[in-house]
């Protein structure tokens, strides 16, 4: 009998590969009794569906890109300067 950890793994796998007959049976048996695993399944399927429906998904990934911090910029400038000085 599969536990929930194994079941969620198979649920996730089923979105990316074909499950074996045995795996499908185990999954089905567990899901009959476990509402949380059923919910996990419907949520990750919904997640995929909603992601695929986004017209410009790249935006979603880029939206969180913070500007480079001043400190990072200064460190980069310094690294370049040092390397240039080293070689002169």
């Amino acid at each position, binding site marked *: 009998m599969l536990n929930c950890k194994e079941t969620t793994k198979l649920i996730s796998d089923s979105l990316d590969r074909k499950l074996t007959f045995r795996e499908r049976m185990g999954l089905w048996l567990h899901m009959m009794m476990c509402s949380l695993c059923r919910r996990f399944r419907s949520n990750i399927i919904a997640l995929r569906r*909603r992601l695929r429906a986004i017209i410009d998904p790249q935006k979603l990934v880029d939206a*969180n890109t913070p500007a480079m911090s001043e400190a990072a910029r200064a460190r980069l400038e310094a690294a370049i300067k040092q390397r240039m000085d080293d070689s002169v």
Partner: protein
Amino acid sequence: MDILDGSSVEKIYNEPCQEFRIRCRELERPRALSGSATKKTNEEILESPPNKYDPSRWVSEHGEVLYAYAFSRLKNADAAEDVVQEALLGGLKSIGNSPPQGDVGPWLMGILKKKVVDRQRQDAKSAKSNFEDDSILESLFDENGYWREAIKKNHPLSLDSLEQAEFMGILERCLAGLPATQAAVFVGREIREQNPVELCKELGISSTNFWVLMHRARLRLAECIRSRWAMGEK
């Protein structure tokens, strides 16, 4: 190979030179970059006015774009800064041997892309070595692998019930919180819709590892979306 970084240049110059040492004397010059002739080579490059390659302006002119790309792939400010630095220094090192054919920007971006892939592979490798050590599994499942009592008591959320704007806002934040390798795999597969086989090749992971990472990314995202939604965050 489209981009010649320092090491590949060295290889190209070194190989024929070992056999034809004398005839190749001219070719050998760039090899000396790390040695005493460096001074001359780099001075020449840096002093030839007007210097369109002027590396002291790279950060101000290209830094932002490079950083944005690195961050979008690596999802981590420190890692992004690291690879941008590697790319800039790599560029500095190889500019004498293989100067850009066109503009410096795309040339630096080409170097950066390689550095990013290297970093992702490295991350994937180290993630592999401690695959069992992932806090998300422990926080969701008890020692027998069943959902923890606390998780069962959480207010359930149906993802379908979220409004689009709310969903997008929450999802953005949750994606940003994924560990680097999980993010690389999930974003590649579900957002860029890359072919899984290609994606595995790019990241240097097996399909078994790919499925493990997808499982964890999905568990994390589902839990993150639920808890942010429960906190009433928009």
